[in-house]
């Protein structure tokens, strides 16, 4: 009897160790499921995702392996129609498994809160007439350990419309349909929508913010990795929603200034626009295969059509 008990504990221990090691491994894999880390914020978010995947894998494997063990070893023998042991509850056990989720929730919420505060992405604080009781206003200042913050903030206006993005650089008063950003600088975007709800989303930055008509929304982040990424509309905006894409070019501050200087010399011209092109094509078809749609806004006039 004693040996049986020791064996049971050993089995349980081996199982727990196997589940723990597997979860830690899966948590590390999580980084490979994500796009390149192109903004300072993405590093923080990826660490949080990896942490949550590790915890989640532990819970999932723990529950399913227990269930699978039962399914394999606790099956009724053929023609045995008797009942199992009538165990109805166990107060100690129930208290423990109520306490564990509460502690986990507090842990996850606290970690998430810290990450969110370090991100300091701003958002539509002006919509609610309340002062931020949780000190969100200071979030931007608290991220000062990021090296970029000593640098001046780069301000860019973003206009979203059905279905195009237009970027305006107030410093030089130029516009583009390609978003150029200096690397390692704090960027502050003023997001505006001309018609419906849109969403500003760059997967490589892990950052997203809805754009609401009649509201100017500030959005801040720090790109850290030069390269070409894509910006998409993340809030469903009607027929040509999927075509509302733009290139994001992160480059060194010098290259960025050069680019600005170069396009300042260019005359505004209409940008290429997939929604407008598709709309023109479907309107010319003799047989209509779809339903009527809102016509796209006129292609924007920009210095750099991208």
């Amino acid at each position, binding site marked *: 009897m004693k040996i049986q008990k020791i064996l049971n504990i050993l089995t349980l221990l081996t199982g727990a160790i196997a589940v723990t090691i597997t979860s830690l491994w899966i948590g590390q894999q999580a980084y490979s499921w*994500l796009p390149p880390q192109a903004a300072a914020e993405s590093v923080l*978010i990826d660490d*949080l*995702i990896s942490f*949550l995947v590790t915890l*989640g894998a532990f819970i*999932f494997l723990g*529950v399913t392996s*227990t*269930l699978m063990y*039962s*399914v394999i070893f*606790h099956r*009724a*023998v053929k023609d045995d129609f008797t009942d*199992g042991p009538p*165990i*109805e509850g*166990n107060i100690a*056990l129930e208290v423990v*498994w109520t306490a564990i*989720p509460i502690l986990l*929730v507090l842990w996850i919420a606290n970690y*998430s809160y810290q990450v*969110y505060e370090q*991100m300091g992405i701003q*958002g*539509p*604080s002006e*919509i*609610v007439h*309340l002062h931020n*009781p*949780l000190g*969100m206003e200071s979030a931007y200042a608290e991220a000062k350990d990021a090296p970029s913050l000593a640098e001046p903030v780069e301000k860019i206006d973003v206009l979203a419309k059905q279905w195009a993005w237009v970027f305006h650089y107030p410093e030089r008063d130029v516009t583009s349909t390609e978003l150029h950003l200096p690397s390692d600088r704090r960027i502050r975007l003023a997001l505006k929508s001309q*018609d419906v*709800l849109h969403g500003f*989303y760059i*997967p490589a930055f*892990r950052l*997203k*913010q*809805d754009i*609401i*008509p*009649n*509201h100017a929304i500030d959005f801040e982040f720090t790109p850290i990795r030069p390269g070409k990424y*894509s910006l998409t509309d*993340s*809030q*469903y905006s*009607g027929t040509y*929603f*999927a075509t509302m894409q733009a290139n994001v070019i992160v480059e060194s501050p010098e290259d960025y200034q050069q680019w600005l200087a170069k396009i300042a010399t260019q005359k505004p011209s209409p940008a290429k626009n997939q929604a407008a092109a598709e709309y023109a094509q479907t309107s010319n078809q003799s047989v209509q*295969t*779809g*339903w*009527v*749609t809102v*016509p796209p806004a006129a292609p924007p006039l920009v210095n750099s059509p991208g």
Partner: protein
Amino acid sequence: MTNVPIEGMLLPNEKPNHESPGNWKEYFSFSTDHKVIGIQYLVTSFFFFLVGGIFAMVMRGELMTPDSDLVDRTVYNGMFTMHGTIMLFLWTFPSLVGFANYLVPLMIGARDMAFPRLNAVAFWMVPVVGIIMMGSFFVPGGPAQAGWWSYPPVSLQNPTGNLINGQVLWLLAVAISGVSSIMGAVNFVTTIVKMRAPGMGFFKMPLFVWAVFSAQIIQLFGLPALTAGAVMLLLDLTVGTAFFDPAKGGNPVMFEHYFWFYSHPAVYVIILPIFGIFSEIFPVYSRKPLFGYKVVAVSSILIAVVSGIVWVHHMYVSGTPGWLRLIFMLTTMFVSVPTGIKVFAWVATIWGGKLRLNTPMLFALGALIMFVFAGITGIMLSSVPVDVHVNNTYFVVGHFHYVLYGTVTMGLYAAIYHWFPKMTGRMYSESWGKIHFWLAFIGTNLNFLPMHPLGLQGMLRRVASYAPEYQFWNIIASLGGFLLGMSTLPFIFNMVISWMQGEKAPNNPWRAIGLEWLVSSPPPVENFEEIPIIISEPYGYGKSEPLTANLSE
């Protein structure tokens, strides 16, 4: 138990005048028998499940390739709008109401629902909702294309210029569906509070009844918000009021609040009865009492209470300031506590039992595993920084399909197989049931698991075209979707053939404990010749005490 009679209400000991047990024609009539209404709900909603499923397969067909090349973008947008709407308002809601209708009076020892005629009226509004929804395909401009959220201003854009358009019909149908559900909620809450058999205190109710009770309370406080939002949007769209139209100074974010104040708790309205079904099925096929019965019962009410303060987690990246994001992060995460309690209780119920893996048990186990997965991705989504990245991506689509297909639809299948002998008086074919389970289980995972890596990579929901790097996982997901579509065929075949010529079912084929198993299969019109007197708690497996004092077991 004292009863205050309400006009039109049926008291436990009153002998009602019911028409004689009908033939198949009764299912097409204005029957007031809760069992007939239950089956009417189930069959009607299953029809719409097939329609919604066909729309899903058109979408998965479109998403096989990165370009928008199978259907027009407008058609694709109409497809996902109607898919979401139909699956929620015409499949999951009505089918679960169908089960609740069939089972609640039987499980609490009542002869019918409290308001049988109101019950029938509530049901007959469902086909009306369905006809309006389907009718929208035939108006100029086609059905609504603004997604099942119908966020303004997109939903206020009316390119046809007609007063009757897809969006108007959509809003009308949703409002009627809301009214029907409120009627149902009043009926369920009254029935459960007032019509329990003598001796059945709250802590002697089966957990399915607890779950229905909690879910219907959510309906009572949540649905008025959605219905009001829908009516206000309808006014904006038809007569030009400016509640939500930013061009006229309205605020579209207000609509998001109206919408999600109900539509997140709606998920619990759907999932709570499924938790109830799990709690009924696991003890029977494990031959053990439900572990921690009281805590599991109370956790249902707790979920209903917390559900009232979680809606903003759908709007973290909308017009929501930081402090509000963080408060709702905490409340949303807190839902995992009562749900966690339930999951542990089910695992403890199964542990050390004498398991029989019949089709209902297989479906319930599969659904439980997929629910645990969905719960974990749900916690990830509640975390504000993670949500900032994956909001509106396929990660969310994957998560809620694990909830709504992996858990709810699979749980519904478990329930259909489990109570099929009771409802029809016939046994289903176990081998066809198992084929159905394996096709559905593999199909579900093949379809919805790839959505998680897609979402983490940044693929957005509601897109008809996408970047080529997302194609691999999309092909897998589409193949899984087609497999899921196929998996319904053995189910339909099994149900139709078994209902017509299956083996005759005994009263209690699973040797289950519960009032519904004490009556004949199918139950007589008034359920109980004599109202049972309850003397013990439910789930007394392994104990020899009788459930009732006057009915034989």
